[in-house]
């Protein structure tokens, strides 16, 4: 148990030790922060940590601390190592590089320039990580502690104002004041729908019931998104603190975090944090000596996208098939086990403590008129800087993709950006100057979604992408309502027909009619939005559909059935392709240009992979 005085003592003492990571401090101490999750972990971060620790011990260095942190965001450049107080930004570090950093930087006091992130070199000076383009344009609220603190350390969380918001809410604010603050802040749900969070809290607060529940939705089903995972792995106490505040506000004593089973790391990290919070008395009965008690339990999903939908999620926690039910009644009135239930997304909660501490006006001064604060995006696909970033609402798509994201790699041309996952749409170049907020993205036929942002270049076929998402929804449709179950299947069939080169113009009309039916008559958000990838690609890339059905061509050369393989006169007749071809479709004399028999070719691509002279092209 920590008393209020002890909480303040820990904060003061530990902050002095860790402040060098976030503000200028005159010190001889070095902190080496290593990103230890996700991408960096699978490319060897743990070995690097061991290497640092053993070398530091070997060299007998004093005043050097090695810290494993959560995601630093720039996943592409991992494993990432940052040396404070300078904030020197080492990327793509290999275990063998560690010795050079220890001897060169820590002992010799000279940064190892060739290991430093290219974009933090500005002429002769080295930029601190905070001033690199990728970070400079960001504003971190939900991700504020990620990459800074060690998620295993409750003390480091406390050092950066941890549990101060809970203390403030419980001891200085009434439940109504907490709800009013969240309402005034303008915070909207980050799980996809964008419903005003404060209103949801108020509905749950007002609902009659002796027992109420608070749920955190960490199902993160959007394929291509990892915001929630990163928050849980990098700053788990922020979610615990926010859920306790929510419990106090709405009158719930029990909370559940529903995490998808594909995230064992996040489950373990949060589990550890819950134990710490219980030991310290931030969970349990009589928190901070008040009569408010709150407990938290983790429940695992089991691989069903639809369980991200709130009523399906509740059914899943109750131990049933995760099928949605019609709303109303909304969970705020009738939720888990029939009791009033507040359900919010991980990122929504990640904002709560900051809003309580800094006030509604601080939060609502950031962002656009109707979308306040920031949004976290997982930037991926054909983009240079893949990773995790947080920007103020109102930042344009162009700033994110070409400013922070660094643009499209390999000299390719931008084609579209996909937001909102399987419920969203593809946005073309012409709208890149749109300011990102809930309403603007919906106007463009996409949506904010939970924060997946996938960039596509000229090699991606938009009909194929629509097909990809429909395959996803067909597989994930729970089957309860016919419009979704059958509508998605028929749309997929048509898309398959088109990408195989057998489509007709009537098929496009049929696709549009089906899309409308599915959108308007499905039971839950999954079906209602399942057609969005089709509708948005038809809206912006209709010419690609037409090219498939009228000209029998795939402009991106991505649809296998429509591709024609040809050998150009770059061919020197080495015969390698003819020998590799599994169906013997290639013939030709030695030292003569070869030819492919299109009737036999199965378009497997082996010849292209093997040709050293780039002589084989797809048309």
């Amino acid at each position: 148990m920590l008393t209020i005085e002890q909480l303040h003592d820990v904060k003061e003492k530990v902050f002095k030790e860790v402040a060098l990571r976030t503000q200028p401090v005159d010190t001889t101490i070095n902190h080496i922060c290593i990103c230890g999750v996700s991408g960096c972990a699978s490319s060897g971060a743990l070995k690097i940590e061991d290497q640092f620790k053993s070398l530091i011990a070997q060299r007998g260095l004093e005043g050097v601390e090695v810290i494993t942190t959560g995601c630093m965001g720039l996943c592409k450049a991992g494993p990432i190592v940052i040396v404070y107080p300078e904030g020197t930004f080492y990327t793509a570090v290999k275990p063998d590089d560690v010795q050079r950093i220890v001897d060169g930087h820590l002992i010799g006091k000279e940064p190892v320039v060739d290991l430093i992130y290219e974009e933090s070199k500005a002429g002769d000076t080295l930029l601190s990580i905070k001033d690199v383009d990728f970070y400079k344009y960001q504003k971190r609220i939900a991700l504020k502690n990620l990459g800074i603190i060690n998620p295993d350390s409750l003390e480091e969380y406390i050092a950066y104002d941890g549990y101060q918001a809970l203390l403030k809410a419980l001891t200085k604010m009434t439940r109504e004041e907490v709800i009013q603050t969240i309402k005034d802040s303008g915070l909207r749900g980050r799980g996809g729908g964008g419903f005003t969070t404060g209103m949801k809290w108020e509905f749950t607060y007002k609902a009659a019931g002796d027992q109420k529940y608070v749920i955190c939705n960490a199902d993160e089903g959007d394929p291509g998104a990892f915001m929630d995972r990163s928050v849980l792995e990098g700053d788990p106490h922020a979610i615990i603190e926010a859920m306790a505040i929510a419990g106090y506000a709405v009158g719930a004593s029990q909370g559940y975090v529903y995490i998808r089973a594909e995230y064992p790391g996040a489950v373990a990290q949060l589990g550890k944090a819950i134990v710490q919070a219980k030991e310290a008395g931030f969970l349990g009965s009589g928190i901070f000596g008040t009569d408010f008690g709150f407990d938290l339990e983790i429940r695992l999903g089991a691989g069903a996208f639809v369980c991200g939908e709130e009523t399906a999620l509740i059914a899943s926690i109750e131990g049933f098939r995760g099928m949605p039910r019609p709303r109303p009644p909304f969970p705020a009135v009738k939720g888990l086990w029939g009791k009033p239930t507040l359900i919010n997304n991980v990122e929504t909660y990640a904002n709560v403590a900051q809003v309580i501490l800094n006030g509604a006006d601080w939060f609502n001064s950031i962002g656009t008129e109707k979308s306040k604060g920031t949004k976290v995006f997982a930037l991926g696909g054909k983009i240079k800087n893949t990773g995790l970033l947080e920007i103020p609402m109102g930042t344009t798509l162009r700033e994110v993709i070409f400013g922070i994201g660094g643009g499209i790699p390999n000299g390719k041309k931008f084609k579209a950006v996909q937001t909102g996952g399987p419920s969203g749409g593809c946005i073309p170049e012409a709208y890149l100057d749109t300011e990102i907020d809930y309403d603007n993205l919906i106007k463009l036929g996409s949506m904010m979604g939970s924060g997946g942002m996938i960039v596509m270049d000229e090699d991606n076929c938009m009909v194929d992408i629509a097909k990809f998402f429909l395959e996803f929804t067909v597989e994930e449709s729970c089957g309860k309502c016919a419009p979704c179950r059958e509508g998605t299947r028929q749309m997929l069939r048509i898309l398959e027909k088109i990408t195989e080169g057998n489509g007709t113009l009537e098929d496009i009309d049929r696709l549009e009619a089906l899309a409308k039916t599915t959108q308007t008559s499905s039971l839950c958000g999954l079906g209602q939005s399942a057609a969005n990838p089709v509708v948005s690609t038809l809206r912006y890339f209709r010419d690609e559909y037409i090219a498939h059905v009228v000209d029998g061509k795939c402009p991106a050369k991505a649809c296998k059935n429509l591709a024609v393989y040809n050998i150009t006169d770059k061919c020197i007749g080495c015969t390698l392709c003819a020998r590799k071809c599994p169906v013997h479709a290639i013939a030709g004399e030695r030292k003569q240009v070869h030819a492919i028999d299109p009737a036999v070719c199965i378009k497997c691509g082996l010849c292209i992979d093997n040709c050293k002279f780039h002589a084989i092209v797809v048309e």
Partner: protein
Amino acid sequence: MSKVCTEENFQELQQAIATHAGKKGSLMPILNDCQRIYGCVPKKIQLYLSEKLGIPFAEIYGVVTFYSQFSIEPKGDYVIGVCLGTACYVKEAQKILDEVKAKIPDLEVGKTSADGKFTLEATRCIGACGLAPVMTINEDTYGNLTKSQVEAIIKKY
């Protein structure tokens, strides 16, 4: 991954039931544990759970078949998961999947190889999109994959 029913892991299952039973909504956590312990939830165990928990077998079967993480058949020693999430898909993960299929004879998505060594799964985003395209083999993650690396990786197992 696949484990036969032994005295030891039956004990482990008993323990899992004891931990969760009595809690509201205990079926999912018990099934999750069962999947972890045995690598599957065979019919025999479903019947056993039905009796122990007083939940109709049909209901348990319904839940097991609804969620893709639960399998009735045991999986191979090594589960190869090729991510077909959006970030991986736009980076040609399909080609990685095709390559895995080409290198291990008769392996299909959702199936286990005849010798029981490999199970192939097309997974949805595992949250390592920064490394797309991504493949996992049991607990190991391989990122920034190219088709030509696949064979060497599989040979490691």
